[in-house]
């Protein structure tokens, strides 16, 4: 009976597996294949070599990779700290206002990321909404925060906010109220409850939220371009340049593969440590 059930599961999932295979795995295989082609070729009919990977080290492409991973890490940590109280409120305190907040956050996603980032540019640029008004009232201007690393991180935090908030709220909702109350009854302070009960029991939500935010931020391009004015070059920028201006598909593919391998390894490590069944509500 159990075998039949597991087979039924496989059959039901088959169409989705085929679609995923075609749309997700196939392009990955092509990129992987191109990454081991000689440089600047446009087909796969060549003997494999690893010259594109060599360029990654020789021409300093690890720098954009470090910037991407570093800024993604910092923004993920900031997102976690900023989203935790809000997610906690959504899961445990706000009750029906959680829906209002959810709609408010989701509505922001209806406007394209680039347009929202341009909105920030207009707001923060010299002579823009803030500095312009300030100067008009006080007669003195100040330097725009644009085109620096912190504003890129701000952009990443701003754009990927929902991707941390909702999984985190879902994770915190899984922490049983009576476990928190029992911990308090047994003498635990608020911080001890956070450390001993909330964080471990909300771990699936924390891992999923952090992975989503980190992965998206590591591959982000618009924030560094629009808000950062390319003060720093991120890895996604290098990949785009290699594929377009550089006309070097193998290099672009090799850069992509490095990023994919690093992020893939992190994702597998993270996901293997959490109970995904718990977070999608199949069990508690």
């Amino acid at each position, binding site marked *: 009976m159990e075998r039949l059930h597991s087979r039924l599961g496989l059959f039901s999932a088959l169409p989705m597996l085929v679609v995923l295979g075609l749309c997700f795995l196939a392009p990955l295989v092509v990129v992987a294949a191109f990454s081991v082609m000689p440089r600047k070729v446009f087909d796969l009919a060549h003997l494999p070599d690893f010259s594109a990977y060599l360029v990654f080290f020789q021409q300093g492409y690890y720098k954009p990779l470090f910037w991407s991973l570093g800024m993604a890490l910092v923004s993920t940590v900031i997102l976690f700290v900023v989203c935790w109280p809000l997610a906690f409120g959504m899961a445990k305190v706000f009750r029906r206002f959680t829906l209002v907040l959810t709609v408010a956050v989701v509505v922001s996603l209806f406007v394209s990321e680039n347009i929202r980032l341009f909105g920030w540019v207009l707001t923060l640029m010299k002579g823009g909404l803030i500095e312009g008004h300030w100067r008009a009232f006080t007669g003195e201007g100040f330097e725009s925060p644009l085109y620096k690393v912190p504003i890129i991180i701000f952009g990443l935090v701003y754009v990927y906010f929902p991707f941390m908030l909702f999984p985190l709220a879902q994770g915190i909702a899984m922490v049983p109220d*009576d476990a928190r109350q029992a911990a308090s009854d047994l003498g635990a302070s608020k911080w001890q409850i956070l450390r*001993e009960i909330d964080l471990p029991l909300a771990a699936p939500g924390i891992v999923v939220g952090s992975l989503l935010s980190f992965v998206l931020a590591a591959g982000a391009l618009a924030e560094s371009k629009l808000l950062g004015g390319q003060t720093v070059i991120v890895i996604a920028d290098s990949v785009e340049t290699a594929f377009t201006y550089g006309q070097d598909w193998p290099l672009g593919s090799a850069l992509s593969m490095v990023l994919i391998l690093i992020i893939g390894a992190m994702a597998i490590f993270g996901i293997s440590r959490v109970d995904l069944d718990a977070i999608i509500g199949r069990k508690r």
Partner: protein
Amino acid sequence: MTDPADPGTPVLRLHQVTKTFGEFTALHGIDLEIREGEFLTIVGPSGSGKSTLIRLMVGMDELTAGEIWLRDQRIDQTPANERPTCMVFQSLALFPHMTVGRNIEFPLKIRGVSPDERRQRALELLQLLRLPDDYYDKQIGQCSGGEKQRVALARALAFDPEILFFDEPLSALDYRLRKTLEKELKDLHARTGKTFVYITHSLEEAMVMSDRIAIMRAGRFEQIAVADEIYARPVSRFVAEFMGEVNLFEVSLSASGEPASELLDINVSGGEYPWKNRDESGLLMVRPEFVRFLSASDTADFVVQGSLQDEYALGSRIQYEVVSSTGRRVTVEKLREDRYLGAPGDDVILGWDLEHTHLIAEA
């Protein structure tokens, strides 16, 4: 176990404790003294306010008015985590991400006790609760209902509370396991000497375990006394009925306390009644096990005639339902070996004596 007759030293005192939720008043000025080392059970139907009361006593909710004193220290403003009391939850509230050992050690870890000492104490508590040592590393999810119950108890005892509260912890268990754990709890109370305050809606649980029982109804205590006292001399119709099957007869009372009823044939010789006449009417109460089937020549202080309507087997006892000529139902219970040798439809005479009769003032 304390001597139920001895008032003892109060360890926790509640004075005029009131709790309101918006317009609704859940507790109306509760006064209660919990004695050192006693097993007090608070019993009441759903919605009577017993869970609200226990949450106030452990500090999980704030009271609207009144005071709670632990010995000579007022604690109603003290947060739950700073009170020397502890509760075993209805859901048990074990930490699912920790092993049995880590659950038990939790309150010790919070206090900064060293890992070796914690482990030592956890193993002692496993032994006290009759769980094998190797349960220390077992996951909570692998434990059975009864084992989880014991782990929750061990964790609460590791906290070493002044008073241990229980919020219906046995309600989710099956009958047999519940019976076993009731006895174990009573035994544990005797062995630890701690003050236990237990909440339940099950009268049976209360009767098995408690030194004293407090009956709650609609946010007030109806009666607080030892189990026998509450069973034999309830103060109200509610308590009488809540404590089990009962026969109640409305009677009018003379100045000397002599009852009169159209239904009952009263033949008390001498006319000395154990109750004082405070009102002009009252309820005469007799428990079904004290009612006898009389033959024509038998006598009893109180007699009622009727016909046997039905009989029900209750395991070791048989319950009979007799309907009087005026349509009043009277319940009789007999042990199996003393069963009535007749059949439904028989005309019967029932009787009982004054010593088993109690007067409830309310009519």
